[in-house]
């Protein structure tokens, strides 16, 4: 396990539901590198809206806070590409 993974595990546990779940109208944050996700997860302004990790580069946003997440990213100096309904 790399240092980045360790940090990620401590900050954003991998989402492992007890049974099969389908989440509709969910918001996720996707980055290019695991280190980038770790960087975002250590920032309390961003972390407060992240619930869990879906992979090393994808995190689930707390329901109802997609707009807050967008504002928090912009306020923290990030320039996220915002896509609606796009999954590919």
């Amino acid at each position, binding site marked *: 396990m790399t240092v980045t993974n360790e940090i990620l595990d401590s900050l954003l546990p991998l989402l492992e539901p007890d049974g*099969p779940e*389908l989440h509709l109208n969910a918001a996720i944050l996707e980055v290019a*590198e695991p280190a980038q996700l770790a960087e975002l997860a250590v920032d309390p302004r961003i972390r407060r809206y992240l619930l869990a990790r879906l*992979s090393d580069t994808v995190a689930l946003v707390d329901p109802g806070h997609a707009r807050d997440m967008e504002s928090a990213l912009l306020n923290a100096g990030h*320039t996220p590409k*915002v896509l609606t309904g*796009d999954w590919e």
Partner: protein
Amino acid sequence: MKLGHVLQSSLRENVKLDGFRFDELKRAARFWVGKEAGSYNKENCIAALTRVMNGDDAARRVQAALSEKERQVLAIFTRYGPTVSGGLLTAEIYARGLAETPPKHEGSGGYYSAYHEWRRNDVVRGLCEKLVLAGNSYDSYYSSSYTHSYPRLTLHPALLKAVAPAAPLSWSASSVCDEAVGTGCRSSAEVVLDLWRVAAALRGMGTWPTVKGDSPSKATRARMRKEVGLRDAEKDPLSPPDPESLFYELLHGMGLMNFGDKSQWIREEALERHLQQPPAMQAWHWVRAWLHLPLWQDGIGVVPERDSDYASVRIEPGKLHLARELLSWALCGVAHTSNRWLDLEAFLRDLWQATQEASIDFYWGSFAWNPEFEMARKKEQYPAGEKRTLAFWFACEAVWAANAIMVTLVTLGLVERGHTADKKIRPCFRLTELGRIVFGAPEVEAAPKPADARFLTVQPNLEVVAYLESADARQIFTLTRFAAGASPASGPVQTFALGRASLYGALESGMTLDEVRAFLTKHGKTELPANVDRMLSEWAGRRESLVLRTKVALALGAAETRTRGRTLNSNAFLLPSLTVKIAAKEFGGWTILDHEDKLERTWTTDELGSLTTNGGHSISRLRLARIADRMATGWQITQQSIGRARISGMTADQILGWLGENLTAEVPGLLEVAVRNGTSRQGIELSQVQLLRITQAQAKEALLYSAAFRPLLAGHIPPEWFLIRDDHLSELRGLLERLGFTIADSLNPPPLRAVQNPTKDSPAAILRIRSDPERRRGP
């Protein structure tokens, strides 16, 4: 895109035949149907007129029956109409020589017969009687009774194609200037930039305080002034007063604002559509909006949406509209003559002559710029008569017209101003190319311009210097999408700054990096500096590396159930969006969570934060793990768990929000206090004290105000408790005994009764408890 006439009106009036008298209907029926209508009764007249007017050959029938003069009047309607305002119709009729000048009332006995003769020969009146032209009877009454101006009239729809539109009139100027000096005009790009900046400032506000008429309030105007800062009349009398409000009202007039309960009053898409139109089309809409602006007046600025009989607060909007219309009509004529410099004073005298019967007539005393016309200065010297009337007109209405031409229309890029080169300096003007196209439409058309004008220079310091005179308005709009204005400024050369935020805004609005690069390369006078190109790529790359996807469907379960999706990990898949109905059908047996819906409430807690959950989904468990500690029997919210949540960025309100969304009952008050204490601790004090209780009112008051007791008391808890200083307890006891009090050695306060928790911190509820009479009285 071909422009229509700038004064064209598409308004249509419906002719209601049953509103006419029998003799009127009979006269019209004879014209439309033929001589046989002479024997019809009223009902037959209406039926025959309805049939003929709606018939296919109505135009042919009527055309044959019209005189040449009548056809010329109809041609005015097909040029400007189907509806033509009274002022415009009057000016046109006299300018085209279709009516005699009305007889002057000079007290002679023959005036009334001359007047009736003039009325009888009036071609417009004749067409109204034939129901070829129709108008509002209210307008007709007032126009015919008090002035020689015609009312607003509409051509019968059956005749719209019966006559070809009248040819444009050219302006016959009594004086032209050979040359002008000190000239100045604005490009359409400069105007677009001003309009865009005001719109951007308003967009930044979202909504803003307004006053009557949706006009900006004083505070809004001050904010626009601060953020946009256009040059105004206070700094330069040849700049408009309240220039930001001029552009505000233009945006309003063009329907680019939508006042309501929305969070954004600027209609973003409509604004973008407007700014992407050809410059002449945009300017054509500015003039159309300006014609009707009641709350920003030329040479005056912002005016209130009210009138006063005692003190003028604005030019009466109807009169101002007529004045703007007649001035525009004159400028339409100017657009159809050679592009010579016109002496302003001579032009206004010509305007007065040409519109005497329609009459630009109002009163206003003070304008931002006063050209001090020669006739106006000498107005009192003229004897009663036409010259004196004109001189007074030059002191008021002409000053308004001067402000409209030399300030407002210059600001909108339609007029170029200057002054004569001879010794006697006089203001003069001519239409800009844009002005000729707008006022000369539909005959004068814009010449095609190369789309790749090189009007900017990108500097290595990421600044873009734009030369607006060479730019197309649309190109400036595109530039503003990805480069921010470096500072509030106006002028033909302006500086923009490329930045990460501005590029991000453009990319988020749908532009691509390649489009930005191509634009800067295509319109750049020099090559795009390599470092700028690198920065643009880097900024765009950063955006690509961080994606926030909203409204996606996530399947967290066994892989074989997925038909189509993107794998995030062995147990998580991103799917195309699904409706709840389809999801329920395709994912039978799965827990379905709609993030836009309310979550199932499965938590219960006591006021000390001991929390249990009845089943629940992953969101519920993840949230619990963030704010509570796992215990053998369930979960416990502790100061440590709240502290941990706080370190991860959560606020008390966010934690309470989660509790509120997941608990089956309300959040207990004590738990709320504990959560808030966990994020910002409240200080309290606790220690042992000596208490004295006196219930008898007179004794209590005496003790409270006694100089002998004051040093012994540490405090008073109304209504009957006193705190005693520890070191003065025996001294107090002695004093009380000396005064005859019987002192009990112990206090037996009644047990605290259960009190229902009032609605959260409601002052009214707290007051209710404090004033509870039983508690006040005590046991």
